[in-house]
């Protein structure tokens, strides 16, 4: 499946320590954040009551289940403190971060935003929500968005750029002019507009972003396909009688993948930054969705509560730094000039 | 040539290593004033890197290690610092390469590029334009006043090669190093360029070190031939002698497997490497 050249490139990537470790750290952090509900939650992972086991992070239990009065979800933090609960042999195991990103913790001294304390390791924001929990959930949102965007953008860009480069001629010229017009659209306004019409949801934002994301890669792919279709081995394949499809997928595409791999980490960075910027301006994901951009905005507003700004800035900085290490390593490892062993 | 005035260039025990690979293994040779020496070999013989090593045009250590002595007019080039070498490169030892399109900057006219060479190495020249026209004429470019303003892509392959030779000659070098200068050219143009070099050699009295894989070119052109094989010089001698009576089995085999005009064979002989090492 993977040619020797690709395997060689992966091996080289492994030797670039900075990139290799960054890659695994980011991957581990992302996979972990996928289970955010099990890491930061105001519901316990495991609850024992009257001899039975309950899994509040996975299932909905009304407060009636635990001798409460209402059919709404049980308030586990309050329940924990109730004497009757303990008497009935109740115990709870909470996730490591005992806070939900959406819940306002108004039971603290002073006004929000509250500084870091034992209950809230990074303090709270101006609605008294736990910063650390919001940071974690926000990471999941940002990374998922950026990943989906990068994948979508890559797919569209590769197809459009590839077809342009392969067909060439008049089609390519027209398409290129159309793309140039398209890329001149003020992308931010379009996002805001469409967001306000169709609602600012994850999907809508993703689709609108991906309408513009693919342009950069299409330039590279167009160039690569242009170059590759005139290579002798592509001509040889045609001389053998290979159909256009075969030449495209078997000969040209595998050799055109280099830009894709090297651009991908930078697309990710772009995606994270774009979403953060949009959230910062308030045109991104709607409140109360935990997002880094929103936290940044708060940080700016409440400079006297530096933990807000610091948390979001540091989180962003570290993530983007790690991603750029991966990108730098990918570029060095997958550099076609280094793998080309033509004498 | 033996106990005559000291040779212009004397290379002793030159070795060139790229990491584990030994490209050139302790070779020694010399070039006298006005002498044309040809280095013949196949790819991997080390002939090209030898030429580049003379003025340290190879990557620096640790990627590439060059050891040995390179005496030019009594000075050891290998021990010279960068500034000293820059005075030698282009002025005393000039190069022309196989691909003129790779060495000519496409965004400058050839007149401008030759002028740059003059500016660097011959500050005494008051009017570069006159000198450039003179040297373009010398290399046989017709209408030099017009061509002076041409860009490289406007010239044919042969003309580009002539322009490169002009650039090399304008500084009146003592040694011209030509690395496969005609390999990329058509056979008729090749003949013209070789004729040109022969003419210039006679007119200017300069020495030429010619790197090639083509035995035919050296005949009637080079005074002496060195045959390189896997980093070593396996045979050396006056051209006619090496061509007519090669002594080393590699030289014999190499000459033997070349198809010659007018000497059609049933089957070409190939080199049996087990016979050689």
């Amino acid at each position, binding site marked *: 499946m993977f040619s020797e050249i690709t395997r060689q490139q992966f091996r080289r990537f492994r030797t670039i320590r900075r990139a290799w470790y960054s890659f695994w750290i980011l991957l581990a952090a992302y996979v972990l954040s996928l289970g955010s509900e099990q890491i930061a939650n105001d519901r316990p992972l495991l609850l024992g009551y009257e001899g039975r086991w309950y899994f509040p992070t996975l299932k909905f239990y009304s407060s009636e289940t635990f001798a409460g009065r209402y059919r709404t979800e049980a308030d586990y933090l309050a329940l924990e403190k109730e004497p009757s609960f303990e008497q009935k042999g109740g115990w709870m195991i909470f996730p490591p971060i005992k806070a939900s990103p959406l819940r306002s913790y108004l039971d603290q001294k002073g006004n929000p935003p509250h500084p870091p304390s034992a209950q809230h390791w990074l303090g709270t924001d101006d609605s008294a929500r736990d910063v650390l929990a919001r940071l974690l959930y926000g990471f999941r949102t940002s990374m998922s968005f950026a990943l989906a965007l990068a994948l979508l953008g890559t797919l569209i860009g590769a197809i459009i750029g590839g077809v342009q480069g392969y067909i060439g001629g008049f089609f390519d010229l027209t398409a290129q002019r159309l793309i140039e017009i398209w890329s001149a659209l003020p992308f931010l306004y379009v996002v805001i507009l469409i967001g306000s019409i169709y609602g600012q949801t994850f999907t809508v934002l993703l689709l609108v972003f991906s309408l513009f994301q693919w342009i950069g890669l299409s330039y590279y792919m167009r160039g690569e396909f242009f170059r590759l279709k005139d290579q002798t*081995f592509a001509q*040889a394949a045609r*001389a*053998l009688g290979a159909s256009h499809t075969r030449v495209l997928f078997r000969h040209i595409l595998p050799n055109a993948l280099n830009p894709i791999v090297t651009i991908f980490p930078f697309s990710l960075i772009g995606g994270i930054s774009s979403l953060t910027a949009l959230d910062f301006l308030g045109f991104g994901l709607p409140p109360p969705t935990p997002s880094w951009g929103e936290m940044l905005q708060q940080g700016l507003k409440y400079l006297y509560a530096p933990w807000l700004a610091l948390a979001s800035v540091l989180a962003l900085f570290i993530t983007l730094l790690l991603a750029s290490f991966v990108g730098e390593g990918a570029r060095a490892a997958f550099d076609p000039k280094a793998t080309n062993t*033509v004498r | 040539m033996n106990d005559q005035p000291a040779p212009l260039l004397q290379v002793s025990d030159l070795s060139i290593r790229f990491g584990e690979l030994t490209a050139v293994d302790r070779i020694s040779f010399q070039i006298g004033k006005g002498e044309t020496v040809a280095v013949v070999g196949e790819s991997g013989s080390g002939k090209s890197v030898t030429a580049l090593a003379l003025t340290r045009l190879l990557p620096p250590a640790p990627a590439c290690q060059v050891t040995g002595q390179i005496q030019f007019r009594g000075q050891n080039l290998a021990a010279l610092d960068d500034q000293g070498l820059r005075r030698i490169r282009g002025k005393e030892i000039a190069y022309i390469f196989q691909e003129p399109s790779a060495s000519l900057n496409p965004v400058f006219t050839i007149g401008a590029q030759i002028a740059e060479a003059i500016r660097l190495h011959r500050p005494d020249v008051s009017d570069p334009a006159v000198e450039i026209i003179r040297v373009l004429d010398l290399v046989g470019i017709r209408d030099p006043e017009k061509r002076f303003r041409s860009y490289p892509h406007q010239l044919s392959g042969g003309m580009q090669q002539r322009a490169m030779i002009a650039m090399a000659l304008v500084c009146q070098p003592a040694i011209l190093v030509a690395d496969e200068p005609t390999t990329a050219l*058509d056979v008729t143009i*090749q003949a013209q360029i070789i004729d040109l070099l022969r003419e210039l050699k006679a007119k200017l009295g300069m020495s030429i070190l010619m790197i090639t894989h083509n035995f035919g070119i050296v*005949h009637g052109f080079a005074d002496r031939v060195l045959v390189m094989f896997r980093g070593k010089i396996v045979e050396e001698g006056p051209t006619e002698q090496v061509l007519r009576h090669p002594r080393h089995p590699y030289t014999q085999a190499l000459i033997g497997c070349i198809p010659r005009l007018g000497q059609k064979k049933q089957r070409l002989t*190939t080199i049996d490497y087990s016979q050689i090492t």
Partner: protein
Amino acid sequence: MNPLLEVTGLKVHFPVRSGVLQRVTSQVRAVDGISFAVPEGATVGLVGESGSGKSTTGKAVIRLAPVTAGTISYRGVDLTTLSRAAFLPYRKQIQMIFQDPYNSLNPRLTVEAIVGEALEIHFPQMNRGARRARVLELLDLVGLEPKHIDRYPHEFSGGQRQRIGIARTLAVEPEFIICDEPVSALDVSVQAQIVNLLQDLQKRLKLTYLFISHDLAVVEHVCSHVLVMQNGQIVEAAPAEQLYRDPQHEYTRKLLAAVPAF
């Protein structure tokens, strides 16, 4: 005897577009009206310098260059009139060996995939095992070893890569092969090996060659007939011995005189 390939009045013109609206201002007449025939079993040489149109002629026969005018008859059938689908079976009979051993093989495919591709296209009924066996046969035919089948192009020398290219060409079992400067990019000693290989294959497999080259000495050695091209036209055509002994056209004489001989 009917010739295997007969070319009549072949013209290959490439339009030159310039200006803002990219109008066709002139034509590059790569091949400007040539006619020749290749008898079965012969090796016909096509010599010329760069720009003579020799490579374009070869490409036109195998449909890698568009034909502006003229006919290309193979066993009596005019190939220029055939559609892409109708031409496909002819790709089994007419094949090409390319000049550049470093570029003519897809660097990401193994030798098995490269040589086997021809089998995949033209003999789809063969299963993987049968294909692999056939590829091994072909490798043996061109002087490579069985262990080479799973290696990648960059692990081979120029001469070996050219052998792989030849194996690929032979996979379809052609009878007519256009050799486009097959040895020009190789060292002299390797040239000799490949030339010998091509001659051996011709005898064993009863092949007909159109041998395109700029190297007159090699052409003299290999070809029975020689065509000399200049600026898109054939200036001289003669049996090899006659051409080299007593060239008629001025250009031929100039070419022969320019070959550095020793």
